[in-house]
C-alpha cells in the first residue's frame, strides 16, 4: 500500500489572477526539492497537490520533512489511496490507520465527496467507515466533539483518499513569486532569521557577507555558509557573495572619528550590497536589525544608514524582542550555529561610545575623510561567489 502526501494550498488560493503563477512555482519547488530524496510524481488538481513516491524504498518521513519546509503550503497530510469502492475504502482505512487507531481512544470519521457521482452521500460514507472501524478496533469509542483521531475520507474524481490528521506546513507564499532580495548576513542570530522570514513572503534570496581577514577568520565565513545552508532548506538554493572588507575597515579605523565607526561601516555595507543586488537582479535589501538592540539600530542610526540606500531595505525583525528572534532561530535550526564564538566584521573595532543619535551631516563629514568610491569599486570587483544548496 503506497502512502502519498496531499497538500492543501495556503494563501495561494486567494490570489486571483496570479494563482496559476503561484501554483506553478510551488510545483516546481516541490519537484526540485523532493528530487533530492528520490523519484516522485507531483501533480496538482482540484486545489490539492498530490505527491506520490515512484520508488519503493523512499522513506516518506524524509518527504514529510522536506514538504514541511516549503513555503506556500498551509497544511498537508499523509494519506493512502483507495479504489472508489466503499468496501475497499473500509478495508484500506482499517489497514492503513491501524497503528494510529490502536494508540487512540476516541475517533470520528469525516467524509468529503467532490465526485457527486459516487453512490453514497458523505454522512453515509462516514457512518459505514466508522462502523467498520469500531468493529475492527473494539477499544475505540466515537467522539464527534473532541476525538483523538479524525479519519477523513475524500472521494475525488479518480480515486478515494484516506487520511488521519493534518500536518502544519511552513505557511507563507512560494519562494520566487515575490521577486528577489539580498540579505546582509554576519553570522549572528538575527540575519538568518530575517532571511528566513522574508523568504517566507515569497522572496528569492541572495546573500552578501563581509569578511575582514585577518580580523575575521575562515571559520567565521564557514559559519555563515552553514547558516545559509540551513536557511536554504526553507528558502531554496541561493548564491552567497563574500566581500573583502579589510581595507575599508582599516581606512575607517584610521581616518574617521571612532564614535562613528559602526555607522560608517554599515553605510559602506549597504552601498556595496545594493550594487551587488542591483547587478544580480535583486530589488531590495534584507537586514536583521531590531530596533534599539544595539547602538547602530536606533532610529537615528537607521536614518543615517538608510540615507545611502537607493532600494528598499526590509527589516522584518525590527519590532521583535531578542527572545522572539531566538525562538525562530531555534525552530529553523540556526541558533546553535549562530552562537559559535568567532569574531565577525561587526565585532572587531566596536567603539567604546558609539553614537546613538548621530547627525547625518556629521556622519557624512567623517565619511568624506575617506576616498570611498575606489574602495567600494575594488571591493565589489573582488567579490567571491559560492553556491548554497
Amino acid at each position: 500500500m503506497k502512502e502519498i502526501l496531499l497538500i492543501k494550498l495556503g494563501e495561494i488560493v486567494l490570489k486571483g489572477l496570479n494563482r496559476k503563477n503561484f501554483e506553478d512555482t510551488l510545483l516546481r519547488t516541490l519537484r526540485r526539492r523532493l528530487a533530492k530524496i528520490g523519484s516522485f510524481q507531483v501533480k496538482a488538481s482540484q486545489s490539492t497537490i498530490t505527491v506520490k513516491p515512484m520508488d519503493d524504498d523512499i522513506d516518506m518521513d524524509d518527504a514529510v520533512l522536506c514538504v514541511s519546509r516549503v513555503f506556500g503550503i498551509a497544511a498537508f497530510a499523509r494519506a493512502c489511496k483507495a479504489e472508489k469502492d466503499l468496501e475497499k475504502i473500509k478495508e484500506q482505512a482499517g489497514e492503513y490507520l491501524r497503528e494510529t487507531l490502536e494508540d487512540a481512544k476516541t475517533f470520528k470519521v469525516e467524509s468529503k465527496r467532490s465526485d457527486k457521482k459516487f453512490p453514497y452521500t458523505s454522512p453515509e460514507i462516514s457512518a459505514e467507515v466508522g462502523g467498520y472501524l469500531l468493529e475492527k478496533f473494539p477499544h475505540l469509542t466515537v467522539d464527534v466533539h473532541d476525538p483523538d483521531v479524525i479519519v477523513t475520507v475524500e472521494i475525488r474524481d479518480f480515486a478515494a483518499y484516506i487520511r488521519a490528521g493534518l500536518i502544519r506546513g511552513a505557511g507563507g507564499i512560494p519562494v520566487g513569486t515575490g521577486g528577489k532580495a539580498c540579505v546582509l548576513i554576519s553570522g549572528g542570530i538575527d540575519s538568518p532569521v530575517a532571511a528566513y522570514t522574508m523568504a517566507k513572503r515569497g522572496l528569492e534570496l541572495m546573500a552578501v557577507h563581509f569578511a575582514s581577514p585577518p580580523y575575521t577568520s575562515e571559520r567565521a565565513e564557514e559559519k555563515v555558509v552553514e547558516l545559509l545552508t540551513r536557511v536554504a532548506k526553507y528558502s531554496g538554493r541561493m548564491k552567497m557573495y563574500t566581500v573583502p572588507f579589510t581595507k575599508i575597515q582599516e581606512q575607517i579605523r584610521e581616518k574617521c572619528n571612532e564614535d562613528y565607526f559602526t555607522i560608517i561601516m554599515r553605510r559602506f555595507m549597504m552601498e556595496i550590497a545594493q550594487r551587488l543586488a542591483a547587478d544580480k537582479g535583486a530589488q531590495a535589501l534584507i537586514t536583521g536589525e531590531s530596533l534599539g538592540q544595539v547602538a547602530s539600530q536606533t532610529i537615528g542610526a537607521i536614518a543615517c544608514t538608510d540615507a545611502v540606500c537607493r532600494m528598499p531595505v526590509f527589516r522584518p525583525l525590527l519590532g521583535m524582542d531578542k527572545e522572539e528572534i531566538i525562538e525562530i532561530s531555534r525552530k529553523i535550526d540556526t541558533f546553535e550555529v549562530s552562537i559559535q564564538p568567532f569574531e565577525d566584521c561587526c565585532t572587531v573595532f566596536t567603539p567604546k561610545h558609539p553614537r546613538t543619535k548621530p547627525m547625518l551631516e556629521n556622519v557624512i563629514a567623517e565619511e568624506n575623510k575617506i576616498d570611498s568610491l575606489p574602495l567600494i569599486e575594488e571591493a565589489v570587483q573582488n567579490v567571491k561567489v559560492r553556491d548554497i544548496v
Partner: protein
Amino acid sequence: MREIYLDNSATTMVCPQAAQKALKMMTENYGNPSSLHSKGFEAQKELEAARSAAAEILNAEPSEIIFTSGGTESNNTAVFGAAEALSRRGNKIVTTAFEHSSVIEAVQRLESRGFEAVYLKPDKNGTVSREAIEEAVDKNTVLVSIMAVNNETGAMLPIEAVRRIIDRAGSPALFHVDAVQAFGKIPLRPKKLGIDLLSASSHKIHGPKGAGILYIRRGARIVPLHYGGEQEKKIRPGTEPIPLICAMGEAIKSLPDMKTELEDMKKLNAYCRSRLSEIENVHINSDESCLPYIINFSVRGIRSETMLHYLAEKGIFVSSGSACAKGKKSHVLEAMELDAALADSALRVSFSRYNTREDIDELIKELVNADNTLARSK
C-alpha cells in the same frame, strides 16, 4: 611556506615512531587483547608494554596505570570517582579557579549533587600559595584536585605541598593532579608526592589523540564511571584502543631525557622572552617561574583572534587563550585578574622539542610586522 607550529600545548605532531606503531597495531597486531588465542595474546603483550612505559616514567607500578581516552576522561573519572567513593566521609572538594574545564565542570556538577566546592583563586603570577590550600582543606574534604602546570600560562602549582596539608588537616581526601601539561616535561613521582590520582594525555607529548592515562595509587579506591567489562581493572571497561595506546607508549619511549630537554627549553624560553621584550607593545603575562614550554603574552591593542589569524596566514600557529575554549574569554586570565585589554589580546606560544630559535625569529618578525600594520582598537 614553512610551517612554524608553536601551539604544542593544544596538541602536538605525532612523532614518526608513534605513527608507525599505530599502523602496525592496526594492520598486523590487530587482535583483541581479551581474546584467548595467540593473536589476542600478541596484542595484550603490546598493551602491557605500553603500560610499563607509562609506569616507568611515573616511577609507578604498571598495575597503577589505567588507560583512558585522554585528559578529559581521566579528569572526569578521577573527580567523580573519588567524590563518590568518599561521599560518606565528607562533602567538600578543594580545587582552583583555573583548572582545565574537564575538572571545573565536573566539580560544578558535583556541587549540584550536594557537594561543597572551594575554587582557589590564582595570584598575579597565576599560581596559588600553600597557605591558601592549607586554609581551604579541612576534615570534611574528600577531594583535592590541583593541576601541576596551568595550560594557559605555564604556571606551576605547589603540588608537592598538598599531601602534607591533607594529612595535617586529618582529612580523608584523595589528591588528584591534572598533569596533562606537565607529563613528560617535568619529573613527576606520584608516590613520592603523595598523589593518589594523576591524569595525563597522549597527544600533548607527540602521541595520537584519543589516548590518556589515569594513575591510581595502589590502595586508592574510586568508583568507575563506565560499566561493562573486565578491562582496565573495571575502571575503564571496553575493548582497548590498542593502536592509540601502543602509539602513546611509543611516544613515551621516544621522549628525550627530561632534564636535558628542560634545560634546552629554558634557553629557548629565555631567548623568546628577550626577543618579545624588544617589541614595545608586548606585555608578557607568564611569570618567569612558569614552565618554560609555555609563554603567554599580549600585544596591546590587537585582539587575540586578529593576531592569531594574521600569524596563521604567515604559517605560524599560536593560540589565543586555551584551544578548548575557541574564542571564549579565558577563565584563567580572568581569574588572574589580568587587565581586560591585556586579556583581550592574550596569545599563547607553546614549544616542543621540534622548535628552534629560527622559529622564534620568524614569530618575532611577523609580530613586529603585525604590530606596525594591523589596525588596533583605540
